[in-house]
């Protein structure tokens, strides 16, 4: 804990082991902690019979049970409407436009550290605490920096790269300085008497309970048969909706016959306008530069070009880049070409372990063509 004085802390508790241990650590550090579970799925029925998915109710109960064991008050807040507008609809619209969004970033930006934080501050809380693995460093001048977690293997600073300095000032990540394995976090939960110690990790998108993103999108956007073409524009297959694809995707293309060179083909481009998916060899995925929009900075925006490391996916590696902000667009050039870069994804820039900022990828430049 970086703060010396006890704070009134609102701990967001998902019902999972990380957020439970985070809340317990915040309470143990002497803070006045209140737990809150966010109800994020819609509830259209007026009668109270199976209105929500059972998983959500179970998660809510697990969170409440953990709060009871920690000995803190617990509430459920209904942010379903905000979540639907800001995260789910955005997710669908992005896929519809042929992009690949990361809903966890959106949720942190718009829900946990916006709607939830604003309400918490208004109610007299000082900070929102989550189970993210990331570190907040308090500088001598009072400013704050967001850094990667001490344990790089668990680092989640990527999905927090959207937080600005004000949001960061009210964020608390008690797990960030943990140099332990997930098993040890579970052991800590066990030691604290938290029943969620043995609960499996959640990996999927929380609002797609069965993990079937394609099915979810098909349900929302309807099926629309279109062509799969190669780089020359020749039709080599068909699909049931361009929105169901991600750039760099190899599996699930269902192209009947092999390519002339016998090598696997990957999704190179998704064109929602004419509902066409373009595929080609892996080399054609090489991206040398990109333009990203809607930049958000953890502190002051950098002036002039700079050299950074960049992360492009939640569990992706680091890559060397130079970046410059020109008229609101972040122009990024890679030191070495990278693959699997899709518009809609976030690029997070780091200076060492420090998060500099993030932006949403809008355009990519390939070795041969600009897509």
């Amino acid at each position, binding site marked *: 804990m970086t703060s010396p004085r006890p704070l009134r802390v609102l701990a967001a508790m998902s019902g999972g082991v990380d957020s439970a241990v985070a809340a317990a650590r915040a309470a143990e550090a002497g803070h006045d902690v*209140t737990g809150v*579970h966010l*109800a994020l799925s819609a*509830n259209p029925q*007026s*009668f*109270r*019979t199976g*209105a*929500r998915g059972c998983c*959500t*109710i179970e998660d*809510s109960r697990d969170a*409440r049970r953990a709060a009871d064991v920690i000995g803190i*008050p617990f*509430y*459920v*807040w*209904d*942010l379903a409407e*905000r979540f639907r507008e800001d995260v789910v609809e955005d997710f669908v619209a992005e896929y519809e436009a042929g992009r690949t969004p990361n809903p966890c970033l959106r949720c942190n930006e718009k829900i946990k550290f916006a*709607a939830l934080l*604003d*309400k918490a501050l*208004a*109610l*007299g809380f000082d900070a929102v605490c989550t189970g993210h693995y990331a570190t907040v460093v308090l500088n001598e001048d009072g400013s704050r920096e967001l850094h990667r977690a001490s344990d790089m293997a668990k680092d989640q600073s990527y999905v927090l790269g959207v937080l600005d300095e004000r949001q960061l000032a009210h964020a608390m990540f008690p797990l960030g300085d943990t140099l332990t394995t997930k098993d040890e976090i579970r052991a800590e939960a066990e030691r604290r008497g938290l029943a969620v110690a043995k609960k499996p990790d959640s990996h999927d998108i929380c609002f797609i309970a069965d993990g079937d993103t394609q099915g979810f999108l098909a349900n929302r956007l309807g099926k629309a048969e279109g062509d799969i073409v190669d780089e020359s524009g020749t039709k080599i297959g068909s699909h049931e909706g361009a929105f169901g694809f991600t750039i760099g995707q190899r599996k699930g293309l269902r192209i009947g016959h092999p390519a002339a060179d016998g090598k696997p083909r990957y999704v190179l481009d998704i064109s929602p306008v004419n509902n066409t998916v373009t595929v080609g060899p892996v080399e054609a995925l090489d991206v040398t530069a990109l333009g990203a929009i809607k930049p958000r900075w953890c502190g002051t925006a950098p002036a002039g070009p700079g050299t950074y490391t960049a992360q492009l996916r939640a569990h992706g590696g680091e890559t060397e880049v130079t970046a410059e902000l020109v008229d609101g667009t972040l122009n990024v050039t890679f030191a070495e070409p990278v693959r699997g870069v899709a518009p809609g994804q976030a690029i997070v820039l780091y200076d060492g372990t420090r998060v500099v900022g993030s932006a949403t990828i809008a355009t990519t430049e390939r070795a041969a063509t600009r897509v």
Partner: protein
Amino acid sequence: MAYLDHAATTPMLPEAVQAMTAQLTATGNASSLHAAGRRARRTAEEAREDLAASLGARPSEVVFTAGGTEADNLAVKGLYWARRDADPRRVRVLASPVEHHAVLDAVHWLAEHEGATVEYLPVDAQGRVHPEVLRAAIERDPDDVALATVMWANNEIGTIMPVSELAAVAREFEVPLHADAVQAFGQLDVDFAASGLAAMTVSGHKIGGPYGIGALLLGREYTPVPVLHGGGQERHVRSGTLDVPAIAAFAVAGRLAAERRGTFARETGGLRDRLVEAVHKAVPDAILGGDPDPAGRLPANAHFTFPGCEGDSLLLLLDAQGIECSTGSACTAGVAQPSHVLLATGTDPDLARGTLRFSLGHTSTAADVDAVAGAIGPAVERARTAGLV
């Protein structure tokens, strides 16, 4: 700590605790024929007589259940099935829209699964069903009504229904009227015989008795189809081994509730009036729910709507100050829903999210009222800043 949620549950009376603990160590199934069984049966039957006396009923009209919810379900479902069995035309259920969920959801279930046609009786702005409304609803076709159910007093806003007048209307058409009197017992003069009701629900833990015990007061001419089948206890209407310790304690609490009702209503009503005054002084635009006339509402109930606030936020802020109350409305997976009671009275849905119910009880003191008086103003101010996120 200021505990102002007695309508949710109220502390057990020491006399009831004593009666219960005395029975917990005694062996005997009240259905057994041997000495131990006879002793248990005697205890249960004496308790039945006590409770009947406290409620203006005959002992045979007391059917013990495992609580108010079960008694409501037995009345609504059991009477529906029995009346429909006797005449298949009887599928119409008349219910007030401000019922507790134990009635409302049972009625809804009958519509979903048993072919019932549910008709919700309109209520006025105070949440009251008028006898002429019931009359008009029955008169549309008196032959197809299975039953009517209207609570004695509302658990959220405290409005008292004109039960005797409603029962008189129902009797005219030979329609059985059930009333959930869980909140009324101990606060109002609840006399089953005088009311003219066919069936009436009461609960132990709302009057200083134990949890998990309740009763359906049931006129002798009614034989609802059982919800629970088994050993045929309780007039073959409610099977299950009698919970003698709970029944004994329930009867003691019931007797004391009836004996002390006048004093309770006067003293607690006085505290309640002070609380209402204090809240209005601190928050002039707070809206008192239900009937502003003390004669028309439960003496221990104070219900408010605070425009621009979310009830949840107020709960959190008051809880942090050691004040324990309720939004009054049911929740879904922990999420407070706009109260169906307020919606039925024509309240705007956004307004209906900003409610608090303070319910007093036999342990309430002037200090509890003072705590609310001191905390409510700043809490409302803060909750308004947080808005309706």
